């Protein structure tokens, strides 16, 4: 049996977080001690482990609660939906990143943004000794092996949709 303090320590959470989880029924205390303190069983610890994993994955508490209530071991559909949403967010953030860089328009902004541009990749590839033909071969291999990752990579460079479609078309 664990007290709320012990549980909080074990999971690196604050007591108030656990109190909140109790109040919304996400992680109810297993029982109360004679003096009214919340106590948690080993089963509650296991439940908290699942909650933490899903929190690390960024799932909202409400979603976690229904996941745990449904009792499925492999919440594939929920996780895939969340992954899809993350991909959309990343895409949007990248666009914002590119807009800000172009608004600032300075070399140091681009350096600090962590964003690569198409020109920079071409420069890096040239430095590695790849000529035009080598780069075409690289795109072909990329498209063939991991088409979705190829798309993602090209988006990360801030290349517009039409040009991405063209590059991928030529790589097939």
């Amino acid at each position: 049996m664990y007290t709320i303090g012990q549980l909080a320590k074990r999971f690196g959470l604050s007591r108030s977080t656990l109190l909140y989880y109790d109040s919304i029924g996400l992680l109810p205390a297993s029982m109360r001690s004679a003096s009214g303190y919340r106590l948690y069983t080993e089963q509650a610890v296991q439940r908290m482990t699942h909650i933490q994993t899903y929190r690390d994955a960024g799932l909202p508490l409400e979603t976690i609660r229904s996941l745990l209530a449904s009792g499925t071991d492999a919440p594939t559909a929920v996780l895939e939906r969340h992954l899809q949403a993350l991909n959309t967010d990343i895409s949007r953030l990248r666009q914002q990143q590119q807009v800000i860089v172009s608004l600032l328009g300075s070399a140091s902004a681009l350096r600090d943004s962590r964003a690569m541009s198409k020109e920079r990749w071409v420069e890096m590839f040239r430095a590695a000794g790849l000529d035009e033909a080598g780069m075409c071969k690289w795109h072909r291999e990329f498209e063939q092996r991991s088409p979705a990752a190829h798309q993602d990579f090209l988006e990360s460079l801030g290349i517009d949709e039409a040009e991405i479609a063209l590059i991928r078309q030529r790589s097939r």
Partner: protein
Amino acid sequence: MPDTNMTKTQWVELFRETGLSEATMRQWHSLFEQRYPAQHQAFLEWLQIPAEEVAQIRQQSR
């Protein structure tokens, strides 16, 4: 669901297939680190390489 992520292994295979040698890849990392350190970091993270290994790769590229 389409896999939008690449792994380090896949990337290395891709480079190898394109005709880059081990030595060229090492040189490529050095240049990347020298010219665009923050982007090098972001790129290695994109390949889902653990933080410790990212630090190691960048260290060796200096």
